């Protein structure tokens, strides 16, 4: 098992190198010049040239690439072209709001979706089942910003239960964090609740037809222990997969929600960096996301061995 984890971690290296190369080239090939954005509309060509020199944009591509990779291996993500602050500092400031909201979102999604899915499977083809399925379709099809503004309208403006926007770090003020994070998390959660509930339902339906569920009934167990002790754990592998990929997708996909709720997270950082052609920031963010995907996938695979003793690496 330890050997497996080490092998999987080693496999991250080539993945990251390929992603790095890809990102680097794509960025250089897309139109847009950071020097021009930095210098503003009134800059002379000579000024632009000076800025390019200072930023190292006049060096041949391969030299720029190797320079960047060398810095990366030294743990240096570079300096933002626009704000001149180190990229690691910028991301470090912005990552926590995103991560905290993502975790709260996944937590809420699982808490709501898994019982929903179990219930729908247990009462297959009853009104409960149909209600859950209808909700799923709705959760999939309504865009995130619509739900976000709807929540704001209802819970912040009409009912005045929660603040409209903003972010407070949980380390600073835990209650404040929840007050401000609940609406964005529920907003993000709708689609994941839909996804996880559907997956749970499908997986549970399979498992509930298995012989060992009949055995559990023949033992005189209560429906609750049949569903949650016997069936759910057997149904858990595909559910875990969805949860894991969902979490990774969240980090990358929070841009809209962060804008709607005015949260200083990495989603907005990335969008701003892209608009400004701030190469080092974009590169670092994409690499970070790729790394996160790989890591989350590894964690999912490890969780399989905990759920199902037959799975061994």
């Amino acid at each position, binding site marked *: 098992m330890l*050997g497996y984890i080490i092998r999987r971690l080693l496999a991250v290296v080539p993945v990251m190198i390929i992603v790095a190369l890809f990102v680097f080239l794509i960025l250089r090939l897309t139109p847009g010049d950071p020097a021009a954005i930095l210098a503003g509309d009134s800059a002379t060509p000579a000024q632009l040239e000076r800025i390019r020199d200072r930023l190292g944009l006049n060096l041949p591509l391969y030299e720029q690439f190797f320079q960047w990779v060398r810095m990366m291996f030294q743990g240096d993500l570079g300096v933002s072209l626009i704000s001149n602050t180190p990229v690691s500092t910028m991301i470090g400031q912005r990552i926590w709001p995103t991560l905290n909201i993502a975790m709260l979102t996944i937590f809420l999604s699982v808490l709501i979706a898994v019982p929903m899915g179990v219930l729908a499977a247990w009462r297959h*083809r009853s009104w409960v089942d149909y209600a859950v399925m209808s909700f799923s379709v709705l959760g999939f099809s309504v865009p995130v910003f619509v739900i976000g503004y709807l929540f704001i309208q209802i819970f912040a403006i009409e009912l005045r239960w929660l603040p409209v926007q903003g972010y407070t770090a949980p380390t600073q003020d835990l209650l404040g964090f929840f007050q401000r994070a609940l609406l964005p998390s529920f907003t993000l959660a709708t689609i994941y609740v839909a996804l996880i509930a559907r997956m749970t339902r499908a997986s549970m339906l399979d498992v509930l037809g*298995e*012989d*060992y569920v*009949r*055995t*559990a*009934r*023949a*033992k*005189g*167990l*209560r429906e609750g*222990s049949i569903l949650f*002790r*016997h069936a759910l*754990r*057997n149904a858990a592998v595909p559910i875990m997969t969805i949860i894991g990929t969902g979490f990774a997708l969240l980090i990358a996909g929070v841009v809209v929600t962060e804008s709607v709720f005015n949260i200083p997270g990495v989603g907005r950082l990335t969008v701003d960096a892209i608009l400004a052609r701030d190469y080092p920031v974009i590169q670092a963010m994409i690499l970070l996301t790729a790394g996160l995907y790989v890591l989350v996938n590894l964690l999912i695979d490890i969780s399989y061995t905990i*759920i*199902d*003793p*037959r799975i061994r690496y």
Partner: protein
Amino acid sequence: MMRFKNDDKSSSKAVLDIRHLSVRLSGEEGPGSLVLDDISLQVHEGETVSLVGESGSGKSVTSLAVMGLLPKGALEVSGGEIDMDGESLLTLTPSQMRTLRGQRMAMIFQEPMTALNPVMRVGDQIAEVLQTHRELSKRDCRDRVLDVMQQVYLPDVARIYGSYPHQLSGGQRQRIMIAMALALEPKLLIADEPTTALDVTTQAQILSLIAELQERHGTAVLFITHDMGVVAEVSHAVHVMKHGKIVEQAPVETLFRHPSEEYTKRLLRSVPSLIPRGARSQESTEPVLEVSDMQKVYSGGGLFLRKPGTHAARDINLTVKRGQTLGIVGESGSGKTTVARSIMRLIDPTSGSIRVAGKEVATLSRRALRPHRKHFQVVFQDPFRSLNPRWTVGRSLVEGPVNFGTPRHEAYERALEMMELVDLPGDALERYPHQFSGGQRQRIAIARAVMMRPDLLVADEAVSALDVSVQAQVLDLLDEVQARLGIAILFITHDLRVAAQICDEVIVMQYGAIVEHGSAREVLSNPRHDYTRMLIGAAPGREWDFANCCELLSA
């Protein structure tokens, strides 16, 4: 000498009393919706009553009805009464039924691998029964479980307690099931094909274990099986079911000596005899399959230190001639399937030679092998899974020949001929596998294999999933196909009765090696190796000639 259980238990207290029970498809009316029609039977203390019949006859529905486990929304009781210990089960609430289940009535199922929860330690699965129905401290509970595990003769109970089902053998798993069922000493035990998935020697052990526990606790046992041999060994009384009705019931010896219903007689006649059929004249001497010194070793793995490998097959030598059938018998893990798969080149043998129709195929690359694949075809055990459910039968049949360059219309013509050969109507080609019964599907599987005009047909447990009457028909069909086309058949089976009826020669395998090889007559009537003797000795009902309703003379 066949010893039937003739002690009369009908004067003991009736534990289970089913009267005029009917079960129908939920929400449907009328006679066509009845799945069980007017079933009446009694099981007394210490008595074993067998329910026999073919698949779909309603045996399992009867047992599920008693347990109150009929699938909701699909089946429902529409009439009659079920009394247990004087209590009317059909009037109980679901929660009252739940307290009875596992406590006063328990059930063992056919396939212990799927009937046990794969992600839960087996000890905990037994403990759950105690925790649900009794107030016990953790420690007492564990002690009780270990005690029950000892009663079913599980070795090293402390270790097995913490094992998962996949880490145990089939026999051990079924012992766990039995321990689970008997943990609270129920009055009634329902055993639904409890040994069908097990090897004969394991089957013999499990049957005697059930009998011993029954003796000790006076349990009433309702035994469901399709295997007449098992029925003869375990039952006091027998009920024969067909299409949801009990067509005949009698004390065991009476039923086997003097069956009165035509259906019962037909069932008994289809039980293959252990006495090998007469030797067939051997016209051909042309070998179709020659295997010499074949080995299959699975390497032991390990990153730096190679662990010793497992010999799945060692020193295999065999020959099958045109028109001849060679049987390979053995229990699970004996290596018979490894041999078959190596010959089919579905797995690669480690060393040795395999010649099919004179051509060495053991060392050919996958690519070089392709043109030779048509010479050897296979029929698998489970016809429900070996045909593509989304393809019409015709499409499945012509695929092979078309793949080897036969024009489509020609292949289709041949498919029509094949349908005739396997006794199915020509329009079957336009239908899908799910529209056929198990026996019909196996005919289709045979037709599909023979479509390729192979020299060698490998039948891997090809009749093991079928009811006896259908089994007999499929065996006849294989014989006929062989006579018409002169192909050689390699027949893999765990069932000595089947081997006796179809094979000219028999190979007995154990631990990956051939322990005995000879004509079917020699091997089965006059076995020389201890293992062969043990196999034959474990075959249930071996002293009885089912077809002729009397003792077997030569046994």
